[in-house]
């Protein structure tokens, strides 16, 4: 069974919300925000770890880490955190393959963990990520959330600390993030109801 390609939409009725250039600029801006908000590089700042949520949160985390290093000179830990086994909607969909969980060498003990995902929607994925993080071993100092797109419609009391772009959407619409690591290019697309993957 192939992984779900949230970023492989049908061509019909879709609008580009972010171009490739926009995506790059957005990530760069988020990197600046991370540096500022975490006081990165300050003598009293603890370790920071970016954990991407597969599929597309993982390359985003790596891109964000590279930008942060570029702008601040500080190498932050980066890894991935698969939440499949913690999802509360497993029984609503065909069985999903597992993603990778790869914690950075230093672990997450006492680190500021920033979860990274492509789209923030109901918030259920993030809740699953918090559960997965609790079991992953180690106790983070704090946990924050970075998303490329926040499309609203939250079903849980969860909000992002870093948002690339807020996009008002109808519930029936679909937001697709494309990244060159997993797709053919960088873009963010909005699909009308019933279109796309």
């Amino acid at each position, binding site marked *: *069974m192939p992984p779900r390609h949230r970023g492989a939409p049908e061509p019909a009725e879709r609008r580009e919300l972010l171009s490739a250039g926009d995506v790059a600029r957005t990530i760069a801006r988020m990197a600046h925000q991370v540096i500022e908000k975490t006081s990165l590089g300050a003598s009293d700042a603890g370790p920071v770890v970016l954990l991407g949520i597969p599929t597309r949160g993982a390359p985003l985390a790596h891109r964000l880490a590279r930008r942060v290093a570029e702008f601040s000179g500080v190498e932050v830990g980066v890894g991935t955190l698969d939440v499949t*086994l913690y999802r509360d909607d497993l029984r609503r969909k065909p*069985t999903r*393959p597992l993603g990778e969980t790869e914690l950075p060498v230093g672990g997450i003990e006492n680190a500021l963990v920033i979860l990274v995902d492509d789209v923030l929607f109901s918030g259920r994925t993030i809740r699953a990520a918090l559960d997965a993080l609790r079991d992953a071993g180690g106790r983070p100092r704090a946990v924050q959330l970075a998303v490329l797109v926040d499309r609203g419609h939250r079903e849980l009391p969860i909000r992002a600390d870093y948002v690339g772009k807020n996009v008002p959407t109808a519930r029936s619409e679909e937001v697709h993030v494309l990244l060159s690591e997993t797709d053919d290019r960088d873009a963010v697309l909005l699909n009308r109801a019933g279109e796309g993957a």
Partner: protein
Amino acid sequence: MKHLLGTDGLDPDTARVILDTAEGLKKTLLGREVKKLPTLRGRTVITLFYEDSTRTRVSFEIAGKWMSADVVNVSAKGSSVKKGESLRDTALTLAAAGADCVIVRHPASGAAHRLASWLSHTNTSVVNAGDGTHEHPTQALLDMATLRERLGGVEGRRIAIVGDVLHSRVARSNVHLLTSFGAEVVLVAPPTLLPTAVGDWPVGAAGSLVVSHDLDPELPTLDAVMLLRVQAERMHGGFFPSAREYSIAYGLNEARASLLPEHAVVLHPGPMLRGMEISHAVADSARAAITEQVTNGVHVRMAVLYHLLAGEEDAA
């Protein structure tokens, strides 16, 4: 996938997904203090064992519990099974009581298939944990997981299965899975312990199956050797003259093991008869993967439960 009844006819892609999941689970749980995952919370898994088998039952039980399923063990001893209730009634009772999955071990070949047909109108999944001398699919999957770790895969590899193939469900499940993954399987046994026309069995198109009665010339060509347990009742069944003669001809001792290539792996489904089919030193040597098999067994069974129970019902 609703049931796991055997590896005969198991689509290699499905097997691969299960193995990848097992690998992912193993990595996820590596070094963790708390092994528990919430994935199957609220799901009920019943192990229904009509034969004694501590290792398989415990492996399934741990797998279920690490996935947070409620695991109930039913054994032929101390249940209505002993009172003469039919397998069919027992199965229907367990399904009606809310079992999401029944893991069955039974001395009759085909028992798991029968169970699945009786439960076809329910949502209850069936896992074959060994039916007579037919199949034991999770054993073959855990053997494959171990071989993938040790050898990187089995495609084009030459793997011997040595011993009582005739009565071995482990051998049958391994023949189908290994050949469907492209391995060349050599069955090594005296003619009395080989199934009828085994050389003509339809096997996975990617691999092949050959038969030999002589272990020594095979050893230098092997990437792995899988030893089967010699059951005491076979020794008295006239299938071979004596335990001593069997051990001399087919036992893997140090001298024989030294004929294997450096990288070759030794597997045994357990429980082992040290000194009979495997010598003490070989069983404890670095090439023996016997404890890894046990560890992988838990992860493979977790993966099987995940694929049977985690997704939506009626998912293909």
